[in-house]
């Protein structure tokens, strides 16, 4: 398949099998670059597996995933993707700053960049605190800050706003849009449908298949629904995959 111009991620007929069943079933879509794309769907629908396939850490059963023009998992992509897992993958026994300094050394980025990322997730006051003493939301922001290091071209964020204070949630979405404006591609998953309106583009997923791949406005007008939650229900009742 030809890589569409302007597509940062190109997923074609992707199938992933886990524990004897297909958790992603022949999914095809593209993620446009320089936009915030939301991957929405209920918990367990295959969002995380799909994101892992894009990052290149998932063994896939079939289909192809092309990221920034290269096959997912290619060694040259490793410093171009920032990936945040659902559970924060940082060191509990190090301080916020020590964690980021470590990942910065691995990525060969400066300590000024460390400061910038700590500020971007609003943790400047907590920078000397050990991660195990932080709240759940704060430690997931440490994980997010680590993914922002070096301004990666693609950010894959697995439920980064779960459990956060609404003000902070709004600030983070603003940050995602700022990053997109500067040219980064942002793919954010959520199981909360009301986050949909904050995205430039939506991928609705259920039970391993895509129900829709559209802009929020188009999605509402084609389904005639008042909000994304209802659009989702309409699509499920139509029984059709997009």
């Amino acid at each position, binding site marked *: 398949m030809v890589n569409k111009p302007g597509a940062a991620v190109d997923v074609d007929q992707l199938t992933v099998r*886990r524990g004897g069943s297909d958790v992603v079933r022949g999914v095809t879509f593209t993620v446009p670059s320089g936009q915030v794309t939301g991957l929405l769907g209920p918990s367990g629908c295959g969002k995380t597996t799909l994101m892992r396939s894009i*990052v*290149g*850490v*998932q*063994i896939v059963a079939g289909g192809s995933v092309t990221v920034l023009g290269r096959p997912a*998992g290619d*060694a040259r992509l*490793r*410093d171009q*993707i920032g*990936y945040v*897992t659902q*559970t*924060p*993958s*940082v*060191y*509990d*026994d*190090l301080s916020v700053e*020590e964690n980021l300094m*470590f*990942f910065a*050394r*691995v*990525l*060969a980025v400066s300590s000024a960049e460390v400061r910038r990322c700590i500020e971007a997730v609003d943790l400047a006051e907590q920078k000397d605190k*050990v991660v195990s003493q932080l709240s759940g939301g704060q430690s997931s922001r440490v994980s997010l800050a*680590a993914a922002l290091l070096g301004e990666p071209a693609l950010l894959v964020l697995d439920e980064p706003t779960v459990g956060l204070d609404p003000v902070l949630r709004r600030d983070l979405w603003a940050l995602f849009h700022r990053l997109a404006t500067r040219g980064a591609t942002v793919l954010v998953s959520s199981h909360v449908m009301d986050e949909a309106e904050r995205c430039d583009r939506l991928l609705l997923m259920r039970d391993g298949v895509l129900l829709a791949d559209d802009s929020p406005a188009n999605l509402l007008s084609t389904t005639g629904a008042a909000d994304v939650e209802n659009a989702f229900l309409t699509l499920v009742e139509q029984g059709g995959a997009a």
Partner: protein
Amino acid sequence: MSPRIMGAVALRVLTQLRRDHRTMAMLLVVPMLLMSLLWWMFDDVGPGFDRFGPALLALFPFIIMFLVTSVTTLRERSSGTLERLLAMPTGKVDFLGGYAIAFGLVAAVQSVLAVTLCVWLLDLDIVGPPWMLTIVAVADALMGTALGLLVSAFARTEFQAVQFMPAVVIPQILLCGLFVPRPLLPRVLEVVSDVMPLSYAVEAMNNVAQTASSDLGGVDSGVWTDVLIIIGFVMAALALGAATLRRRTA
């Protein structure tokens, strides 16, 4: 392979240890306490301390580094930090090498303390140069680190990781020549002990303790052979360990 990333991993592991005062204290003080205990045990009995002391100096770094490494790397696997590192430009060799450097340094400090105590305060009789004991201890600690890294791939929980200690380490303690000199073991067990790294560490320690020579480092060349054999085991275990570090998982 990237020296920058390897150095970053080593520095990070040492920072984690520095923050964990209790573990650090245990790593450095417990071997000294146990050597003192051994010395005290044989206080009224005769030359037992000289006979068992060197072998024990080989046991500590091996056991302790095995335990510490298997638990820390298991934590790294289960917390997702390993996956994150491998999704970054980290090579497997950088990861393993970083751990080896950090724990190798800790082992060197641990060994200098234990050897200093034994030789200068507890009068352990060492014919060869005492610093050679530290060289052997570091090689031996790297062996513990490498085996710990390897077994952590086969454990899902920290509970399971700790259970590998009796399974992997105690047979080596039994067969390393501490209880029965290896040539006197039944033939099958002697062959088994030949493929166990701890046997060579204990042999090297005993050799340094009992012999001196004008050869390199003031020790019999057999000591260097033992050290090289241990390094060979370390390399093999690290290579197997690297194979268990997967960038892609199911």
